[in-house]
């Protein structure tokens, strides 16, 4: 049976100044999967994350966490913050402490854990993100990629069940960005549900298990990437580019229609195989 | 005589040092070790009650608005960065805006004094500008006397219906001037001449007027520019 870790029903959120940010948004996020949420700037991805983790309180609709309806009382909000972590787009906006160690310890400290447990969690998170050697460095000495890793360690140290990554590859160079994508796979294999928002269709297509397409605060399409990214209608509506692998695949089957029975390729290798069939 | 030799060495060293030192005029931070211990302690003692008030005020503010802590943190960082910018002064030399007047107008003087003490501490240990033993004196002149003067002038002028531009200019410029006067008083009291402390104060006022009066005017002008743009947002 499929188990959903987060579900929303007709979720709405209106900012205090009256701006509608989320409109009747219904999604179900399957436990242990790699989920991508795609959509142009301002589609409401970040607002959605902040609603689901309890920083904002929805102004309408329902949110379920592990099947239980959230009423956003103190206990619920605490449970959401504890179990759902957000790694923000701009690491500079998230990091507040000068020392890497203290920065990462902030989350676990707020969970009220004993000091020894906090220490252990911080060391673990730093080791996992590959920055144990930076422990004593001040944050302003770090490169952009290293700051990103600290901001991920921040969240890992809280040991959440779900991790939202808001445009994790936006400010980093291509090499770091490939390393990060591989790291998210590792986290996923360890049992975390990973939800990633991004612009980069080429990155997300081979990575994601399932895709939601957002536009103006609503989900306009969802499905497996092989379906979503072949739907020209949806891509156009949401202002998205087609991943080059899909574009190439479509060209191939246009010229050799008999290949359309084959599976849609999800890796470069599969595509090149198909190309020469 | 022992003194003569010292004078020669110190004079030679000073001359050499002035030749190769950077031509930057720092604002009125009394340097480390300049004040005798007694006066250093007195200014600490006078500053602490105000700082205590400031801490209480911030605690209350942040308890009501948890986001206030971040706002104050960022504003403190802003004040530090502002003080490290070089401001073209009227006399052509470069100096540093203090942002004290702006802080007092926006947050009130007690809160500004707390930001002031942190910024002054950082200036001492990151920029070698000011000092630990003279922190009390510098906090009193820049973090307390200056902001209070700015605040009172700004409020007073607003009450009698002066224009925003004039009030902001005068508040910021006088905040600077009061800082400079208080610093001169601090130096005069610590190093009185034969004819008393008052003459000594006058002496220091005269010496620092050359750099500080143009600086106060520059700071006033800059604060007006900043304030005007801020009100547009």
């Amino acid at each position, binding site marked *: 049976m499929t188990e959903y870790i987060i579900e929303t029903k007709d979720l709405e959120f209106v900012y205090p100044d009256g701006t509608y940010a989320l409109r009747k948004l219904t999604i179900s996020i399957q436990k242990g999967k790699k989920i991508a949420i795609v959509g142009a700037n301002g589609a409401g991805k970040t607002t959605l994350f902040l609603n689901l983790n309890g920083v904002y309180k929805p102004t309408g609709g329902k949110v379920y966490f592990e099947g239980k309806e959230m009423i956003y009382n103190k206990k619920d909000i*605490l449970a959401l913050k504890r179990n759902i972590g957000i790694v923000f787009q701009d690491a500079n906006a998230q990091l507040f402490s000068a020392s890497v160690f203290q920065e990462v310890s902030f989350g676990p400290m707020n969970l009220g854990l004993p000091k020894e447990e906090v220490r252990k969690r911080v060391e673990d998170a730093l080791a996992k993100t590959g920055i144990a050697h930076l422990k004593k460095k*001040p944050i302003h000495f770090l490169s952009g990629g290293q700051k990103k890793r600290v901001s991920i360690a921040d969240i890992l140290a809280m040991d959440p069940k779900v991790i939202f990554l808001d445009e994790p590859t936006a400010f980093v160079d291509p090499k770091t960005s490939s390393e990060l994508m591989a790291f998210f796979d590792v986290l996923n294999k360890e049992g975390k549900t990973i939800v990633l928002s991004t612009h980069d269709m080429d990155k997300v297509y081979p990575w994601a298990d399932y895709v939601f397409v957002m536009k103006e605060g609503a989900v306009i399409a969802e499905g497996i990437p092989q379906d979503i990214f072949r739907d020209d209608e949806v891509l156009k509506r949401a202002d998205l580019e087609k991943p080059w692998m899909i574009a190439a695949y479509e060209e191939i089957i246009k010229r050799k229609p008999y290949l359309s029975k084959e599976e849609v390729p999800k890796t470069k290798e599969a595509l090149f195989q198909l190309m020469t069939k | 005589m022992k003194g003569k030799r010292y004078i020669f060495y110190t004079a030679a060293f000073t001359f050499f040092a002035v030749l190769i030192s950077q031509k930057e005029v720092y604002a009125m931070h009394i340097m480390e070790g300049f004040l005798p211990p007694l006066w250093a302690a007195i200014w600490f003692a006078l500053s602490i009650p105000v700082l205590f008030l400031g*801490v209480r005020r911030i605690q209350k503010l942040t308890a009501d608005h948890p986001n206030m802590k971040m706002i104050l943190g960022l504003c*403190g960082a802003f004040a530090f960065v502002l003080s490290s910018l070089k401001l073209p002064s009227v006399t052509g030399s470069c100096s540093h805006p203090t942002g004290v007047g702006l802080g007092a107008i926006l947050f009130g003087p007690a809160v500004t004094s707390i930001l002031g003490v942190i910024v002054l501490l950082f200036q001492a240990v*990151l920029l*070698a500008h000011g*000092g630990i033993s003279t922190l009390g004196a510098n906090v009193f002149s820049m973090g307390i006397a200056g902001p209070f003067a700015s605040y009172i002038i700004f409020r007073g002028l607003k009450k009698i219906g002066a224009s925003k531009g004039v009030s902001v200019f005068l508040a910021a410029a006088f905040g600077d001037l009061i800082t400079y006067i208080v610093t001169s008083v601090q130096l005069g009291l610590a190093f009185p001449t034969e004819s008393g402390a008052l003459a000594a104060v006058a002496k220091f006022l005269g010496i620092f007027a050359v750099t500080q009066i143009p600086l106060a005017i520059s700071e006033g002008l800059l604060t007006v*520019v900043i304030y005007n743009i801020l009100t547009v947002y």
Partner: protein
Amino acid sequence: MISMDQYAYINRLKSVHPMEKCLLSGGMLLICLWNTSPLVHFGAIALMTFLVIAVAGIPGKTYVQYLLLPLVFLITGVGGVALTITKNSTLFLYGFAMGHWKIGISQQGLDQAVLVFLRAYASVTCLYFLAFTTPMTDMMWVLRKLRMPTVLVELAMMIYRFIFVLMETASMIYISQDCRLGYSSIKRSYTSLGQLASNLFVKAFCRAQELFTALTARGYTGRLDVLEENYYLSMKNMALIVLAQGIFMILALQ
């Protein structure tokens, strides 16, 4: 400007217990302040310079550059101390009259100026020892141990972190303005700098809101608690510090 901060994290005394360094620096500072003996002052300058250059490994050139920084204040200040204004003095080594008043340098003023000069320089070297060898993050730890109000330390921590973020933004705006001829005359410099400062303020304000949101997502409810790292006091260092300060006290008594 950042170089002092950078050395604090890479010098050879970085991992020494911050309290030991504060004790040495603070203790020597007090000794220098309270003593009028030039021997103590020269001794302190020599010891601190030795520690900074030979032990901590700070390049001599950088250290000397920093020693020159306070000179502008020192010269005007010491000049002011040396100068005497009086109506009735006959003790001037050098002086001239201005109306009823006589302005000049007396032996007493000169002695005091020399004392102030030496005392200030000796104290500055004590401060520099601390600044060059102790990372700011460690100093915050000391502030906490000294029972400074929590809110003060929390603010200091955030201010320290965001100084670098805002400094970077400020320099980006500055370069962008410079590329568009924003600093080609005094008047333009004024407008440009005013725009820079006010925009930086607005950006700082937005950053504060973003930070609040991000920290709330990690469970912030008003307290910025972080885990302190452990430091271990070295008995050997403590003994050396006490010994050094003892020697200076004896020196002062002579």
